[in-house]
C-alpha cells in the first residue's frame, strides 16, 4: 500500500489571508491532512491488518510535513517518504510527476505497490487530478471517489456514489490507483504507543525534481461577505407560527 497525503492548515475559524495575499493566515492554525486523506490512511492500515503486507505514506511538501507523515505512522502505517520541497506551492501536474517518479523509484527498490491511495481532492486546492495523473503516468487503472473498498483475488472492488444517489460497484485489477472519500471508514485516533513508535521511525527523504507547472497562483482573495441581516422570527417555541408562515411563503405548506 502507498498512501499519499498533503499537509494543509486546520481550518475552522474565520479564514484570513497573509498581507501578501499568497497564503491563508496560519498563525492560529494547526496542520493536518485533508479528511479524505485521513480516510485513505485508515484504509491502507485496515487493508494491511486484513491482508498483511506493509503500508507506506508519502507526501510532497516542506520539511514540516514530517508531522503529517508521523501522524500516519502513529495510526499504523509502516514507513514514510517525504518528497521535500521548499514549501512553495507545486501545481498538480508537477506534483503528480514527482509522485509518479518517486513511486517508480520506490518500486524499483522494493517491488510494486498493489494500491496507491489518494484523497479524492485536497482540502485546500481541490485540484481533483493528482491521483488520476499519477495513474496515467504509471499506466494503472484508477477509481476515484471510493467510499467502500474490498480486495478480492487481485482486484479492488470499490463502491462509489452514483449521481442519482445510488451506488456503483466497480472493479479494478491490481495494481491500481484509488482516490478515497471521507465516509469510507471512520479513522482511528492514534494511540500513545503508536505516537511513540511514530516518533522513533526514520523518514525516508527524497529530493524531488521540480519539472515546472503550468498553473500558477497569482493571489488569493476572500469572497465578499454577505451583508443582509437575518430576520429573527422569534425565541423558542413561540416562533413556530412565524416559521409556518415562512414555509407557506415558499410553498412548502398550504
Amino acid at each position, binding site marked *: 500500500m502507498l498512501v499519499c497525503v498533503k499537509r494543509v492548515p486546520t481550518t475552522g475559524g474565520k479564514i484570513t489571508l497573509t498581507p501578501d495575499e499568497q497564503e491563508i493566515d496560519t498563525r*492560529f492554525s494547526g496542520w493536518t491532512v485533508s479528511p479524505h486523506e485521513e480516510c485513505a490512511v485508515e484504509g491502507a492500515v485496515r487493508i494491511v491488518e486484513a491482508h498483511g503486507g506493509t503500508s507506506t505514506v508519502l507526501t510532497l511538501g516542506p520539511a514540516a510535513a514530517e508531522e503529517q507523515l508521523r501522524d500516519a505512522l502513529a495510526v499504523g502505517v509502516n514507513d514514510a517518504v517525504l518528497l521535500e520541497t521548499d514549501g512553495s506551492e507545486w501545481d498538480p501536474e508537477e506534483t503528480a510527476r514527482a509522485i509518479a517518479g518517486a513511486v517508480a523509484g520506490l518500486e524499483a527498490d522494493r517491488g510494486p505497490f498493489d494500491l496507491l491511495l489518494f484523497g479524492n481532492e485536497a482540502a485546500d486546492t481541490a485540484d481533483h487530478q493528482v491521483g488520476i495523473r499519477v495513474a496515467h503516468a504509471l499506466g494503472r487503472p484508477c477509481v476515484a471517489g471510493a467510499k467502500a473498498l474490498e480486495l478480492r483475488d487481485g482486484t479492488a472492488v470499490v463502491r462509489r456514489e452514483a449521481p442519482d444517489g445510488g451506488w456503483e460497484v466497480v472493479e479494478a485489477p491490481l495494481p491500481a490507483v484509488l482516490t478515497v472519500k471521507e465516509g469510507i471508514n471512520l479513522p482511528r485516533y492514534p494511540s500513545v504507543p503508536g505516537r511513540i513508535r511514530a516518533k522513533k521511525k526514520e523518514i525516508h527523504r527524497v529530493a524531488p525534481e521540480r519539472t515546472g507547472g503550468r498553473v500558477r497562483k497569482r493571489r488569493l482573495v476572500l469572497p465578499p461577505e454577505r451583508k443582509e441581516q437575518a430576520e429573527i422570527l422569534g425565541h423558542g417555541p413561540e416562533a413556530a407560527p412565524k416559521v409556518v408562515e415562512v414555509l407557506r411563503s415558499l410553498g412548502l405548506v398550504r
Partner: protein
Amino acid sequence: MPELPDEARVVVIGGGIVGNSVAYHLARLGWRDIVLLDKGPFPNPGGSTGHASNFIFLVDHNKEMTKVTLDSVRQYKELGVFTECGGIEVARTPERMEELKRRVASAKSWGVEPVELLTPAQVKDLVPFINEEVILGGFYTPGVGVVDSLRAGTLMREEAERLGALTISPNTEVLGIDVERGRVRRVRTTRGDIRAELVAVCCGVWSPRIARMAGASIPLTPAVHQMIDVGPVARFEETVGEIAFPIVRDVDKNMYERQHGSEFEIGSYAHRPILVEPDEIPSIEEAVLSPTELPFTKEDFDPQMEDALELFPEILGDERVGVKYAINGLIALTPDGMPLVGETPEVKGLWSVAAIWVKEGPGFGRIAAEWMTDGNPEIDPHQSDVSRFYDHQRTKHHIVARCSEGFNKTYGIVHPMEQWSSNRDVRLSPFHARERELGAVFFEAAGWERPFWYASNEPLLEEYGDRVMPREAEWESRWWSPIINAEHLAMRDRVGIVDLSAFAIFDVTGPGALAFMERMCVQPMDVPVGRVVYTPLLNEAGRIKADLTVMRLGEDRFRIVTGGLDGPRDRKWFVDHLPEDGSAQLSDVTSAWCTLGLWGPRARDVLASVTADDVSNAGFPFGTCRPIEIDGVRALASRISYVGELGWELYCPMEQGARLWDVLFEAGQPHGMVPVGIGVYGTTARLEKCYRAYGNELEMEYTLVEAGLARRAVKDAPFLGRDAYLRQRESEPAAILCTLTLDDPTSSSGVKRYMLGREPVLTRDGRPLEDGLGRRSYVTSAGSGPSVGTHIMLAYLPREHAQEGAQLAVEYFGERYPVTVAVVGNRPLFDPENARMKA
C-alpha cells in the same frame, strides 16, 4: 438580549469563573446595577475556564493560596458542582518523598485534613491502573475533587440575576475604557457605552490588553499548558459519573493524569515555556477551537508521552485507546506565580481580578468583592495584590523572563529561599561594586541585589567555631551559609555595615501632612521634629496593612521608610488616603536615597571617627534622627535598629553612596568592622530580638494585640482602624505571638535539622494547635539565634498554650522536634532590656 444599561455601578468584564464569582459576591454583598459582559457567549465565552481541567488539589505551601483554595472548594460545594475523588501526588525520587513530607506539614499548618503519605502499594489500591513500580510513594488528599466551573458560573449569574443585581451581556466586546482625572469613568463596548464607578477586569489571558485601554498594566502573560484526552478506557466504562479514581499528579514529571468519564486526561507543565502575546490570541472568529485552545504542538508533548506511558501502561499502552483531543491551552502566568487582584495602582476604580485558576476562582471573587465593598476582605490577599509590583516588574522583559523560568516549577520542589536566575541585576545599590569585590552572595528582593552574606567573611568561621551553628542537612544548607551566623556574631561583638538600599522611601509634605500621618498611623505622629517612630498601619476594620518607620523631618515633613517588598503596596495605601484638598502630598524618593546600616557595640566609635557631629548617647539619643556630616557627605542619620544593636541607619543620596561606604568601611577597619548581609538583618538578629516582619507575623489575619504590638496607650487623635483597635484591646486575644526555641534538633537518623518556617506547631504528642477562631499554629519565622545559641521560631499560639516554658513540638520532614515556649509576647530573647541599642 436585554438592553445594555448606559450606567452601572460596576462593570465586570469577563464571564469566566472569575468574573462570575465577582458579580455573584458583589450581588450577595448588596451591590446592584452590576453589568457582566464578555466578548463571547455564555456559558463558555472561550477563555481559559472553558478548557480548564477543573480539578482542585488543596495543599499548597503558600498559606494565602491554600486559604483561597479551601474557600473556593467550600463555595463549589455550596453550589453543588464539586465531586470529591481524592488526589495523589506521587514521588519518583527520594527528594520528592521528602517534599511530600513537607506537604504533609503544610497541610497541618493550614488545617487541611485528612492527608496521608502512602506506600506504592497503597497508591495502587486507590489507583489500580498505576504502575506502582516506578514510584516511591504518594501524598494523598482525599478531599481533592473536580468541579464543573462553567456550571458554577451559570449558577452564580443566575443567583445575581435573581437578586435583581445583574445585567449580563454576552457577545459584547470592550472597545475602550475611558479614564477621567485618574478615575475610570466609562466602558465603551460594541453594544454601547456604560458609565461606571468601578470596572473589574476579569479577563484572564486578555487582561493586559483590556487594562491597557485604561492606561493600566496587569503584568501577566498567556502561556501554553498542553493537555490531551485519550480514550475510550475500558476500565472506566463501568464507572458512574465523571470520575471514580483519584487524580494523580506525577509531579516529578510535571504532569497530571485524571479520569474524565470514559477518557483519561493528561496535562503537562513539562514542555518548554510557550508564551503568547495577549495581542496574538486569536479572536473567537479566527480560532479553530476557541481562542484559548490553540493547536497542539506535538513535538513539545512527545517526551511526556513516554513518562505517562511508564506510569499508566495499562491505559496508555492499550493500542485501542486513542488520543482524541489535544490542545495547547492558554493559561495566565505571572512573574511571581501569584494572582493579580485589587485596584490597579494606575487608575482609580479599575480593578484587576486576573491570573486566577479555577481552583481559586470563587475565593478570589469573594476577596475582590469584599475588598471593593469595604476594603476588608476576610482572607488577606496581600501576596496577590496587583499593586505589589515596581515598574520594572511590569515590563515585558521581566514578565517573559520570570514566567518562563517559573513555568517548569509548577510542580517543582521549590526551596523557600530559592532565587530566580533570570533578569537579575536590575536594581543595584551604589555599594554594589564594593560588595561584589567582597564576594557578596546576592539574593534578590523587589529587583534589588542584596548581599545575603559575604564570602570575604569566611575567616570568621574559624573565629567562631561551632557558635555559627553549622547545618548538616542539605535542605536547610541550601541558599544558606554559616557565614551568616558568623557575621551576626561579629556584628554583635564589634560592628557591621548593612546595605539597606532596598528600602522604599516616601516623603509626605504639606500643611496637611501631620493630620494625614496621624490619620494613617497607629502611633502618634505629632512628635518633636527629629523623632523616629515605628508604627503599624491598620485598615478601617483594625486589621494590619503594614508596619514601617516614620521620621519627622520638619513641621510639615515626614519620611516614611518601609520594606522593599512592601513599597508599592504601602505607597498605594498612603496615596489612596491623601486628602482631597491637596494639603498633603506624597513623593516616592526610593530611587533618590541609599541606606547603610551601621550597628554594633563599636558603631559609635566608627561614626565618631568620621563626623564632627555629636553622636554620643546624650547628643544623639535612641529614636531620633538628624542630618550629620560624614567626610563631605551630608547623611540623614536615624538611631534605630532592627538588629538590636547600637547604631544608625544612614541615608544619603544614591550618587554619594559609594563615597559613604568607603569612608565608613575604612573607618571601621580598626574596629574590626565586617560587612553584614541580609541573612543577619532579616532573620538571625531580628529573631533574637523577636521583631515582627510584615508578611510573616504581621498580616490581616492577626491583630496588633495578638502580635504583641499593642502599646499601653492609644492616641486620642483619630486614625484608621482606631475603633476596631480599641475593641480588640478590650477582649482577650485568641492567640498570642510567642517565641519558641528548639530543644533538640536531632532527627531520628541523628542528623541535626533546622526549620525554615511555615511548619506546624503541635503538642508534644502530635496534635495540631488551633485557637478559638479556628486558626492553626504554625511557625511564622524561623532562623538561627547564634548569640542565644538556639534555633528560634515565632508562632501564634492559642492562649491556653501561650505559657512560657510550655513544651510543644514542631513537625519537620515527617518528624516531630521538641520546642519550648521561651517568650510570650514581644520581649526579646537577646538583650531583653534593649540596653545595647540604647547604650
